[in-house]
């Protein structure tokens, strides 16, 4: 089913078209949710809530951009809203005492590299990984992040800097990348 047909079917509230759209985008969107969530169950809850919004607001989609980008934006905002609602993000301990967090390498599953990287991101404190996800992966500016998360722009910058440093350390520990920091080397899987 083409994207146009899916879109038209979703506008007509066709269950088949909705399921097709869901099947096409849900794996990647669950990956997005998983980076924000504490565990898989939370990620699936976010995904469900996000897709409900997608289908209920599909008529607002203008075909000027990619449908996937629009869906992704809704999913990300849903994740942020869930985090805010659950007060996970506002946990200040995560933000200011993150350096003392013990990193257990055994928690990082040694499977595919993408999975390893994502697991490393998920090991960051909630505040760190949220800012990192939004800035480095989702492409939001610090100003937008500050607006979304109701924090100062400077806070977003500092959080991101710390998050990136911690993630680097993690990736080096996991031997996904190597020093030096400015000249990061990626150790490819299998080498």
């Amino acid at each position: 089913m083409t994207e146009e047909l899916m879109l038209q079917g979703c506008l007509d509230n066709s269950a088949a078209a909705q399921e097709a759209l869901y099947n096409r985008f849900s794996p990647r969107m669950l990956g997005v949710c998983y980076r924000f969530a504490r565990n898989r169950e939370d990620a699936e809850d976010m995904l469900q809530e996000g897709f409900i919004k997608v289908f209920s607001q599909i008529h607002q989609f203008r075909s000027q951009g990619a449908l996937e980008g629009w869906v992704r934006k809704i999913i990300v905002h849903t994740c942020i809203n869930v985090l805010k609602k659950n007060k996970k993000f506002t946990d200040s301990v995560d933000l200011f005492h993150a350096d003392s967090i013990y990193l257990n390498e055994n928690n990082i599953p040694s499977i595919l590299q993408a999975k390893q990287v994502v697991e490393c991101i998920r090991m960051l404190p909630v505040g760190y990984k949220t800012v990192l996800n939004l800035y480095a992966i989702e492409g939001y500016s610090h100003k937008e992040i500050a607006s979304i998360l109701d924090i100062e722009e400077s806070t977003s910058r500092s959080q991101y800097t710390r998050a990136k440093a911690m993630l680097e350390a993690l990736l080096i520990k996991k031997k996904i990348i190597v020093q030096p920091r400015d000249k990061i080397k990626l150790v490819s899987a299998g080498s």
Partner: protein
Amino acid sequence: MERRFTTDELEQFLKQEADNFKMMPSKKVWHGIYNDIHPGRRWPSITISLLLISTLIFIGHMNTPNASLSHNQKSNNSGKNNSAAVTAKAGTDHKSPKDLNNQGTSQFLSGNNETHPAAESGASGITLEQPAADKVYNKAIDESRESKINVPKTNGNDIAVDQSNVPVLQAELSDQAIVSPGIDRNILPAEIEVLSAGSKNSEHIKEKILADNPVNFFPEKQMTIINDNLSAPAPAVMNKYAGETADDRKADKQVQSNVNSQKPKAISKTRRNYKLTYTYFFGPAVTNVSFRGTPISPSVFLSTNTSIMPLNYRVLNHAAFGFEAGAQMNYAFAPKWKFTAGLHLTYSGYNIRSNEMHPTVATLILRDPDSHVNYSRQYFSHYGDGTGLTPVNIKNHSLQASLPVGLQYQFFTGDKVQLNASGDIEPSIVLNSYAYLLSSDGRNYVNDPSLMRKANMASNFGVFLSFGSEKFTWQIGPVVRYQWFSTYKKDYTISEHLLNYGIRIGITPFRK
């Protein structure tokens, strides 16, 4: 192999890896989304669930002993803050009146092993609205205040205890020794009377209470007195009497006789309807079939082809097993007669002896029931009339749901066994059916669901024995069911009538 990254390249690397990351969500995610965006499609399941739950609740309620009695007790207990009834307290333990007579009241009047004679002897079976009791009680207090009565404790024994109400009473009665700490506001008029019986002005108080609150002592409107509860006093009461003076006993007896003389003669407030019973049954059946009518000759319809003549129009068939099941409500409107209604499911059918053959065009000559104009339909048939070399059984069957309405008569009543006969008419809906019709030339069987009748009418007649066990009445006996209208629509001029012979096994729960 190594690739070098700058810090910005790290971000790019992260983005790339994160974008490549995918996870397969579980099925329940989509189900949750689907149910949320298509709520209307959940209604069938919700409706069925609600129907099932309400049916189960209804059946459970109907089969719960003392359901209506408990309801009465609850209604007495709830709704008003100060509307607690004595029997409701005892009744919450779900004890029989007999048990209550023996022990219930003395247990409920906790905090003291001995209770008042009036409470012991009669209170356990009395339902009294609390406001009325309060009125009597307050009146007694006022009277005793006026007359400066100092009612002694009966042999030093405290009476009722309900600590929740103590402060109020103690505040009111702090300067008087009318009651010991912990008198219950649920106190009965009889208790009030006995409380004051030992006082100097007891007769005066009693008369005053009776004069001011006559309704409390004419309990037809307010009391439900269970016969046995007002019998001889319990041993505890006798012991209590042993410690009293002769005057006290005389006064108590007088009060007791006063109450007894004015009590109703066993007012039964039970709402249980012994006339209404429910029977659930199941039974195997054997179905025979009879045919009426004559087929329309193809030669009449097809005047140009007079060579087509009907052969021997005969459906070679033999009986097949079916079943019937259902639930039935029985209402006894006369000593030996019961009105019955319910829901029956009947599966019936028969086997046709046919034979396999090469696909052949078969014709049904039909007649429009309104205009009486003949018309024909052609079918491809694989089944012959049963005279071929490759015999095969094909089955005509139907599943019908019916709402029977009928009567039941009791012929004989023995010590343990009853003999009953029942008959009903059953408007039916055909839930599912599959039938082969013999073609007009009698050579082939064809199937045409559009010729099947969707509704029908049947009668059921049966004789059965009833015998009781501890909790149920069992029924067993033969039944015959006859289908009045043809299985087929009127277009098909042959009418088919099913006749079921079966054994019905029923069970009727006792309604205690």
